[in-house]
């Protein structure tokens, strides 16, 4: 399985990439939504994208909207991983087409359990 990690923080990209690798994914990363779209156009759709919200150039919500406008990418699961923790933000992300939502800070188990909800991995014990 392949995953794209989209976050303007290099540290977060490293942490999430390592977590996903441990969970069986091959990973690519991007520092904002525009870069992420370029990666997907080059590499094709992933099984999963982890998407930060607040990023320069193109934020996570805009990326989700753009990704969902591409029929060829419709099976890609989009999971927000963000410091935005208000209910209204969660609603907005889901309405834009995000499949799941993780609030920072998170643990490895949280990521694993969310992936299980998406049908992308084993549930953490």
């Amino acid at each position, binding site marked *: 399985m392949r995953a794209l990690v989209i976050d303007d923080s290099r540290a977060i990209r490293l942490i999430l990439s390592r*977590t996903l690798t441990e969970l069986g994914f091959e990973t690519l990363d991007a520092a904002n939504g525009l870069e992420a779209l370029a990666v997907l156009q080059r590499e094709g759709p992933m099984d999963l994208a982890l998407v930060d919200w607040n990023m320069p150039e193109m934020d996570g919500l805009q990326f989700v909207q753009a990704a969902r406008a591409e029929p060829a990418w419709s099976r890609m699961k989009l999971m927000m991983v963000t410091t935005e923790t*208000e*209910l209204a933000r969660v609603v907005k992300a889901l309405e834009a087409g995000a499949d799941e939502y993780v609030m*920072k*800070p*998170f*643990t490895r*188990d*949280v990521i694993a359990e969310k992936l299980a*909800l998406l049908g992308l991995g084993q549930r953490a014990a």
Partner: protein
Amino acid sequence: MQQPIAGSGEGLAPPKPRSLSVEDFAFISDFVRRRSAIVMDAGKEYLAETRLSHVVQKEGLESIASLIRTLRQGGARELEGAVVEAMTTNETSFFRDLKPFDLLRLELLPNLIAARRSTRTISMWCAAASTGQEPYSVLMMIDQHFPELRDWRINFVATDISNEVLGKARAGIYTQFEVNRGLPAQMLVRYFDGQGGKWQIKPELRARVQFKEMNLIEPWAAMEPMDIVFIRNVLIYFDQPTKTAILGKIRKTLRPDGTLLLGGAESTLGLDDNFTAVRSQGSTFYRLQTGGFK
């Protein structure tokens, strides 16, 4: 407990525990066993230290050693209660292990609804419910997938030995960490209200479950016959005679066609021969040997 990744916030590691002597660990193990039948074998010293450290902090005591000295003297009922609560609180999370909820949705509840059409009543019991995530998960799943049950009488009882966790369960207020774990985002927006950084289960859902104090090893108050009993990841803490005794009492609580759900690593094998294991939807449930839907 895992350290949170990426940033500050709640759920940071507990205070560094003090050391617990061999004699004090033996005393605490015996004390907890007498009060709750929970077994703490060698190897659980760190768990004991961590939980006792929280009691020390909360009660404003000097150290674990002084806490145990007080317990040895006897008569400190509130402190004794606080220790039992701290040592018996079980970790839980929304939709824990996931597969039993698929089993409920795809098989157990459809069959139960068909069997109960004449009475339009379903009775369920969640034993050792801790802070309430399990019963609320069941209720969210029922509301989402079986809206016809909104007109039925759902008798849902959730019990625990700890009054403190029951209070939290009744309030239905959870931290960001707790709603991050295992809860589908769609259910978060549908069944929770944001409460200044925390999340509260909506009142109409909270009203559908009764939380009651109950010690599994003490005599039980009379209960309505149950269609489904959840006692998941609880029996593992008890010794074999206690497990057998609890299963025997559950057996008498279950309707003839009732269902028992245990934790994924648990079984009635070797404990109570009156149950039959049934494997379905990637999970296992238990029926009385003479039971089954007619």
